[in-house]
């Protein structure tokens, strides 16, 4: 395991010595069985696989395992593990999800957005969330929930 890559997922130390080009998405889903992070496009166009890498929203489907040395990875399963995050609470209050498939990624993206922009304007929400597709079309409620979560966290 001399060349194994060392990193953390949801606070747990992990080591990987497999195919270095494999995207993190499949390690998370197939190896660790953490299926909250979704496969949507495979090329970084839809955001269904958004996770946090060192606190930044990152597309797991285009993040190769070889880039993870020392990284802190956080997935939806760790958000609210000790009580729901304000973003999750507002997602529930505004009844955001329809099919729900993209919502893990939307929530991860929204949390990262609020970290950088604690009081986001409409333009901030557009800029921060435009890389995440919701095919059911829940955008209006996503916007409302993000703004409410910003109030909640204030």
């Amino acid at each position: 395991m001399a060349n194994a890559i060392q990193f953390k997922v949801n606070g747990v130390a992990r080591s990987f010595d497999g195919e270095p080009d494999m995207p993190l998405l499949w390690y998370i889903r197939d190896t660790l069985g953490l299926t909250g992070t979704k496969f949507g496009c495979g090329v970084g166009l839809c955001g269904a696989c958004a996770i946090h890498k060192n606190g930044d929203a990152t597309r797991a489907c285009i993040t190769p395992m070889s880039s993870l040395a020392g990284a802190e990875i956080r997935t939806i399963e760790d958000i609210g593990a000790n009580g729901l995050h304000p973003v999750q609470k507002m997602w529930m209050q505004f009844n955001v999800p329809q099919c729900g498939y993209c919502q893990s990624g939307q929530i991860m993206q929204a949390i990262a957005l609020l970290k950088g922009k604690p009081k986001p304007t409409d333009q901030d929400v557009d800029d921060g969330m435009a890389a995440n597709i919701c095919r059911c079309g829940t955008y209006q409620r996503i916007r409302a929930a993000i703004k409410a979560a910003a109030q909640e966290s204030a």
Partner: protein
Amino acid sequence: MTSYDLTELVTGKAVYGMDAHIDGMLYASIEHPPVLGGKIKSVDNAEALKVAGVSQTVVLDPFKPPPAFQPLGGVAVLANSTWAAFQGRKKLKIEWDNGPNETYDSDQYKKELQETARKPAKLIRGQGDVDKAFASTESTFEAEYYVPLLAHAPMEPMVALAEFKDGKVHAWAPTQNPQAVQAIISSELGIRKEDVICHVTLLGGGFGRKSKPDYVAEAAVLSHKVGRPVKVVWTREDDIKFDYYNAVAAMYMKAALDSNGKPTAWLQRSVFPPITSIFDVNAVYGDPPHLAQGWTDMPYDIPNLRIENGPAKAHVRIGWLRSVANIYHGFAVQTFTDELAHRAKRDPADYLLDLIGQPRTLNFTGVDYPNYGASYDTYPWETGRLRRVTEMVVEKSGWGKRKLGKGAGLGIAAHRSFLTYVATVVEVEVNDDGDIRIPRVDAVVDAGLVVNPEVTKAQFEGAAVFGTSVARSGEITAKNGVIEQSNFDTYPVARINEAPYQTNVYLVESDAPPAGVGEPGVPPFIPALCNAIYAATGKRIRELPLSRTDLGKQS
């Protein structure tokens, strides 16, 4: 009333088809024939088998026409992870015999559809004498409309897990149609339907795609062949390229107009490859249930009326997509109505109400009108209800009263589908570069008795976004029989900055029997948006998607 599984949905714990797992399962990725009906000439799997994690490849038989819900055929790569299966598949070397659909070209096909639409065709419904009225009138107006093939693109690509064991199949699948899963697996494997157990998972979107279980059958066939549970995972590219597309359609419209600009005769003719073509290779005419979607039931009270349908042969699989034939039929009828209003120099909302006329029940005696499979006594087509939602949306949207910004316009449309009456007003802003923004949508809905208003409103909010995707950029095309789009870069769908900013949904209080709410928001939204673009720019949209038209000031 909140959703039952909301906590799971916001914590990543909800289990979709993509998340189904049983110990010992293999992952499969399938290279399908690039052209519908194509067959394998030769396969070289040597490099694929060298990929770490890949265990074997399996050749899948091509379907026997008609395709229905059969697997498409191709070569499956099986592996111990999704990624390994994807990688192995990239290393396959396959020579294809593409078959007769190799000549399918969307540009050429479009011309053929449009030519067919200009010729007399099969009568679907008629009254009076349209030809005589056209010959004797001073003023006629005609226009042609076109809507391309559309893909569903649900966020969860097609996926299914199946295990064949002891003569039975267990399938875990995100399906809208578990009975069809049983039927197709039963026929593929020669086992009884009762021996197919379909475990329906959560669906990561469907929009009609997941009522066609070809992908579930693939998993079952593979499990049967390899003796292990198999999870078939389609890529996004597979999803876009091997969909059952909403039909491409050409519509021809002609009206004879009196001195007030009101139609005295009305001819409408649509041409599209029918959904029935997936079940019958000879099917070229629209079937009554799909013609009934906003075409047979054109509601205006016009003394001379001809509703026609022309033939079109399918070269891809055609299928149901959220509101189906209502998409292109509603676009043609409601845009043509707006065109006539402007020609008559009338307010489009007033003109629309004039054409809807006084409350009456449409009479389909002697007409094949399936009415969405519902009893006509229970769910009659009442123009008074369409009139009411139209009057209400005029009021709720502030039509004619609202101050609009520079480059902005309002458009209106009304449509009944799935037994529900909807009128929609869209506000659009078009900047000098031709980029559009949709600040506001108002939709009034009469769906009869509504059980869950919150979820119903969400459906109409979502329908406005879905309609935005169709209108802005929804277009699937083929060249040499191969679909040219592949992912969200070439088949874009609306993002948060492109979707309507605010959609207001108003539900009519009603004791009428309950009706559909998932689909009916889509058909009126699209023409209302296009009519708004006309109001804002003077540019008439007769062809979708909008990306085909330069809406900028310079053009």
